[in-house]
Each structure stands twice: as structure tokens, then as C-alpha cells.
């Protein structure tokens, strides 16, 4: 019964947010973009609205959070009541505040990590596809080897060796992710490098960097963006899995992945506290992928 009710409420919210998001975006968009938003499916407007909400929360975190990020305010596991609307965590910090700051840290880190993985992975992948031959063989064998090592264990080795500052965390997860991006970028680019316009650019005497940046990358964006959507979300999961192994983001920084881990045991007793950060991740994942799907659909539609 509760499940049914929450599904109904959820669907209702979905439509509400979707419609409201679409209307607001249409109103706010510059004139030449209006049509794009007008024909936007409900899923996409929902996704976009959620993403914008997250971004707003992330940017405004210090302004809207009722308390300080690491502030210990009282007893642990207080119930949901004012002034702690979502209760407190195991150290007596305000759960709502942690969630809000978590948006800032988690989304920021995930974005930085994914962006880095994509820059490195796609440039190398396209480069390999473009140049081919021994360079391609060398890079591909090396990436194959890295991919054959389980990601979690590989991250664990690297983090243990290099320490667990946020920077190394970003670098390590990005390095592991970049191998996946490399493979995708390479196979996509292999389809593009045979096009006449690439031949024309080569014959013109263009350099490698220009070929990658101006001729291939823009045309490889659609599948890369789709992958970006998923990879972006996998970063939260990586952080969460690493904190399962005792690595991850340093305290008192709030981060959803670690928050899920910290409170995970409670779900064993049916306490929904750990669902809050997990739900925040899931909502963002779904939202990001709704938007990505929409963009992909648009890209493929324009091609026809």
C-alpha cells in the first residue's frame, strides 16, 4: 500500500516538475532556443529541471543550508522534526545540511572526474583511431590490459599507493574511467576517420590536433555524451564502493556516496535514512540520462 501510494505521489511529482520545468525553461530560454524546449518531452524537461535544481542547490549550498557543513549540533539520529527536518546523522550533524553540501561536493567531484576522464580518454581514443598502426596497437593493448584488471581493485591499489586526497581520488577514478572512454571514442572515431571530410582535411595537410578537435570530436559527441551520462553517475558509485573498502572522500566533507555507506547498515532495520543520499544519486542519474536520451534523440533526428 505504501509502495503504491509512493508510486502515485512520485508520478504526480514527475508530471508536475516536468510541466513546470518545461514552462519555466520556455519562458527563460532565448528566442531561437524556444522551439527546442517547446518540443521537449516531459522526461527531458523533468530531467533538466532536476539537474538545474541540483546545480542551484550546489551553488547556493552555504546560503540555503540551515547549518554548517560539519557542524555537530546535538544528539545522533534525531527524528525528523524542526529544526532538523531530516533528522541528524550518527555524529549529530544535520542531515538536510549534509545532503545540501553533498550536492556541491559530490556533483562537483563527479563532474570534474568525468570531464577529465572524457578529455583524456576521448583524445587518446580518437588519436589512436586517426593515426592507427603501431601507436593504436600500443595504446589499445595497454588500455586492454588496464581494463582487464577489475576497476575496484585497481583503484584500491592506486589509492593506497598515492593516498586519498580529493585530487588523487579524482585522478584515480578518472584514470580508470578513461580506459572505458578510450575504447568507445576509438570505435566511434574509427567510423568517422573513413569519411571523405577527414580525407579532405588530411590532404589539406591539417595537423593531428586540429583533426581531433575540429574534424572528429564534434562528430563523435553524440555517443560520447550518452556515455558521459552513465559515467557521470558511475563516479558516485565508485566513490561509494571505495568508501565500502575504507577509502573515499575525507571527512568532514559531505558526499553522498560516503553518506550511503555510513548509514547503509540502518537499511537492514528498514530505516530509510540511507535512502536519502542514495535517492539523491538515483534521481540525478535518472535525470541526467533523461536529458542525454533526449539530446541523442534530437541528434539522430537532425541527421535524417
Amino acid at each position, binding site marked *: 500500500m505504501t509502495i503504491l501510494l509512493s508510486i502515485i505521489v512520485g508520478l504526480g511529482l514527475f508530471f508536475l516538475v516536468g510541466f513546470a520545468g518545461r514552462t519555466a525553461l520556455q519562458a527563460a530560454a532565448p528566442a531561437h532556443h524556444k522551439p527546442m524546449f517547446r518540443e521537449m518531452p516531459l522526461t527531458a524537461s523533468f530531467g533538466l529541471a532536476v539537474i538545474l535544481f541540483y546545480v542551484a542547490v550546489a551553488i547556493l549550498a552555504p546560503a540555503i543550508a540551515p547549518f554548517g557543513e*560539519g557542524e555537530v549540533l546535538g544528539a545522533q539520529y534525531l527524528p525528523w522534526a524542526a529544526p532538523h527536518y531530516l533528522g541528524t546523522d550518527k*555524529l549529530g550533524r544535520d542531515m538536510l545540511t549534509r545532503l545540501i553540501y553533498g550536492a556541491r561536493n559530490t556533483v562537483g567531484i563527479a563532474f570534474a572526474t568525468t570531464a577529465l576522464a572524457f578529455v583524456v580518454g576521448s583524445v587518446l581514443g580518437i588519436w589512436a583511431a586517426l593515426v592507427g598502426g603501431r601507436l593504436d596497437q600500443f595504446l589499445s593493448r595497454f588500455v586492454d590490459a588496464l581494463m582487464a584488471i577489475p576497476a575496484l581493485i585497481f583503484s584500491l591499489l592506486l589509492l*593506497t599507493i598515492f593516498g586519498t586526497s580529493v585530487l588523487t581520488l579524482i585522478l584515480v577514478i578518472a584514470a580508470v574511467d578513461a580506459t572505458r572512454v578510450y575504447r568507445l571514442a576509438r570505435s566511434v572515431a574509427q567510423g568517422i576517420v573513413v569519411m571523405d571530410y577527414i580525407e579532405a582535411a588530411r590532404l589539406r595537410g591539417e595537423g593531428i590536433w586540429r583533426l581531433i578537435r575540429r574534424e572528429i570530436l564534434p562528430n563523435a559527441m553524440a555517443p560520447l555524451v550518452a556515455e558521459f551520462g552513465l559515467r557521470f553517475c558511475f563516479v558516485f558509485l565508485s566513490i561509494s564502493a571505495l568508501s565500502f573498502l*575504507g*577509502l573515499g572522500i575525507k*571527512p568532514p566533507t559531505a558526499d553522498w556516496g560516503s553518506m550511503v555507506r555510513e548509514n547503509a547498515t*540502518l537499511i537492514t532495520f528498514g530505516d530509510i535514512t540511507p535512502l536519502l543520499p542514495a535517492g539523491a544519486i538515483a534521481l540525478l542519474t535518472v535525470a541526467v540520462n533523461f536529458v542525454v536520451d533526449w539530446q541523442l534523440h534530437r541528434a539522430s533526428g537532425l541527421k535524417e
Partner: protein
Amino acid sequence: MTNTKFPHGMTRRGLLKSGMAMTAAGLILPAGMARAQAEPKRGGVFRIGLGHGSTTDSYDPGLWEQLYVQTFAAARVNYLIEIAADGNLVPELAESWESADGMTWVFKIREGVSFHSGKPMTPDDVLASLNFHRGDASTSAVKPFFDPVTDIKVDGQNVVVTLNAANADFPYLMSDYHLPVLPSAEGKIDPNTSDGTGGYIVESYEPGVQATMNRNPNYWKADRAHFDQIIMLTILDPAARLNALMTGEVDLIDQVDPASIALLESRGVSKILSVSGNAHYVFPMDARAAPFSDNHVRLALKYAFDRQELVDKILAGHGSVSNDNPIGPANRYFYAEMEAKTYDPDKAKFHLKEAGMDKLEVTLSAANAAFSGAVDAAVLMSEKAAAAGITINVDRVPDDGYWDNVWMKKPFAASYWGGRPVEDQMFTTAYTSGAEWNESFWSNEAFDKLLVAARSELDDAKRREMYQEMQRLVSFEGSTIIPMYNNYVMAVANSVGTPEKISANWNLDGFRAVERWWFS
């Protein structure tokens, strides 16, 4: 996850497996909480789920270092001497022991005891078992115990150990879990044997996974080893352990996550056993270098956080506040009346000013490998210290390699000590100048002198005075923050019966739950 340094020694173990296990020691009920139990009953399969155990575990007693192998051993083997639940030494394979001068110790070996193989246990087996840990080529963790031992020999039914100096506490050493009596051939034991004189015979063992043992039908102790079969499982994930207990997959788990204790109790399917001992969590500061070389800085930090909050939040109340005192309430000479330190930012500020500063910034390195909740404890301290003008930057370091790279290498870090029944051992190991595990590198001449004097002091009252003075010195001049004593927290199925008094010496009733407990 534990790892001894000395008998009843500090236990520790750096590694990610402790992170996986999210260890949490804690305690709710006072030691030996009274419980009307029927007489022990024979029978049943006792299934234990422990947050310890690794595929690299082995039968080699020189390498035993955590709760799984320790408990596994207690089921299979016997020692010369047992520490009873009340902390007193009682005979096990040694019927009696005596020494005239504290240098030559004579252990009378029990007769009529057989190994699982049927071979009778003899003093020669005892000799070989002890000798395994002696000598340059020995790879035993307790090799240093035997440094003062000049000779061990068999004399009829006796084993005679000669030391190079008097040591009244030597029998305590012989109760150490590294020193089981194993069958020998030609003067040597096979360190990889599963054989022993204990109450259970190994049926199968997969290191890091499970062990199955059946009751030894010829066990020489009539009133022990009540279960028909014991199954020991390694369940590293705390939630998985809880689930295993709640779904009836196991009857006993250790290291209950403090956050879940109340929830678990409310389920009513199991009961919490919380045993207070002398185990304590510590934050040593390197006294050799600034800023910790100044005792005012150390005192400022000691007043700058809320001890009760740590007990409440890190241990969920399963422990008690410590006044920077490594000697616990279970010790004979515990100084309970010592002036208590409470959270007092003003006092902290005062001491800072005395040290010539108006604010202080330090980095505290912590990993949950040090103790479960170490990182959270550091965060809580950091939060409270801010009010005193002290900035504590919490540096969460990897669990893996913690004891190699951080402990005694970083100036301010988290650490953990198991309790010990004898004050002298605690102080000697970790607080005398130059001691190998003096983790704070604290050096105090008065303390060192007192410690030596107390060892030979026979007047109990004077001795008490001396030990209490030492406790005061460590507390108010020492370089170690000791916020709390942690209980051993276990959860058992309602059907499990325990003696009235559960040993505070080590976890799981001194590892002996396997032979002391029963199904009621």
C-alpha cells in the same frame, strides 16, 4: 584485526580489511551482567560469525593475530594456564606452578590428557611447544617473550623455565594465546597441525571463510565444551553480520555496529552482551617536537573536546569516559578519584595562552583501522576544539598500511590498546622512556623511577599510591589523549547461555565462549 604486542597486549592491525569490517567495539551492559541461567546444557551447533579472518590465516601459532584465529585456537587447543573470567590465573594443562625466587619457574604438567590423535600429552610436548617461539630462526610474534628465558627443560612431569631476572608475572605470559601445547615429534612441533588437546576437533577449515569443529568425545574437562559442533564463519561486512544473526544464520556475532545496537535490541531476536574491560582508544601526540613538546599544548587539547560525546556517539554508550588514563576500571589500582577533565574551552584557551599562543592548528591522522569510528571521533574532536581556538584538521588516511605509514610516524594519530590486567605491563609497554611502543615518545624521569620502584614494592597500599601517581602523571603530563574505554560488544541469539561473569580479558569471553557457553 587485532595483533598482539605483549600478552594481553595492544591489539591492532592495519588494513583495509578492518575498513571492510567497519569494526565497532562497544558495550552496553556492565561486565558479567547478572543473568539467571540454567546449568550448562550439552548439545547444539554453535554458529559464530566474526568480523575477522583472512585467507592468509594459518595454523602457525606464531602468526596468530586476530579474533578469528584466536577463538579458533581456543576451541582446539589448551594452554598451560587460563585466565578466569574474574581475571585470576587458573590451572589448565599446568596443574600448578611455583617459583621460589621469581627466576626459576616450575610448571607441573597435567597427566592423562590426550591429543585428538590419541597421543598422550607429555612435558616434552610442552617443551617443544615453547621452544618453537625461541631462538634466532623463530618467526614467532612472541619471540621477545623468551628473550629473558635462559633455559627450558623437562624434569619428570615438570617443565622448568629459567629466567635471567626475577619476574613475578611470568605465569601471565604462559597464558598467552600464542603458546598452545601442540603434539611434538623429535623435539619439534608441526606448526601447521590442527591437532590439540582442546574440546573440539577440526572437521574442515577454509581460511578466511569457515571452520567446522566437532566435540572432542575424550575431552579432559568435564564441565566445558557444551556444544556438539561449532561452525565459525568470517563475515566481514557489519550489516551482513547483523543480517546473519537476525535471519538465524548464526548464533553469535562480534563487533556490533554501535548505531545498530538499539535497533537490534528492539527486534527481540537476540541479546547484546557488552563487556567493559580495560581496552581503550588513544590519540598519541609526538612529545619530541613542537607543538606537542609543550605540556600546555597537550593539556589544551585534552580540555578541548567532549569525552562523553565520544562515548555516546562513537560507542553508543557502550564504554566509559577515560581521563587520559591507560589503566582501566577493571585494574586493581585504578585511580577513580583523579580530577576529571571535562570539555572546557576556556581552560583549553588558558593552557594555550600559557604555551604562548592564542590559536593552534594541528593535523590529526586517523583511519578506522586504528579503531572503529576513529575518523568520526577525530571529526567530533575537531568540531568541539574550534571553540577553543584550536583547529584540528582531520586527515583520513587509508586503512591499508595504517600501522606502517601513519602510526608512530605522524605526530598526531589515532591508536588503540587492548586492556591488560597488570598495570606494570601497560606502563612498561607504552609509557616508559624509550619503550619500543611508546607511541607518544613521552619521556618522564619521575614516572620511569616510580615504575621500577613499584615493581618491587610489596606493600599494597604504597604500591597503590605509586601506581596512582603514575596514572596522574600520564593523565596530566603525558602526551596521550585517552578519551574512552570501549566495551567488547557481542550479540547472541536468545537461546545462547553464558556464565554470569564474562571475561573482560579479551573479546568473546577471553576467546573461550566456544567452551564456556551453551544453548539453554
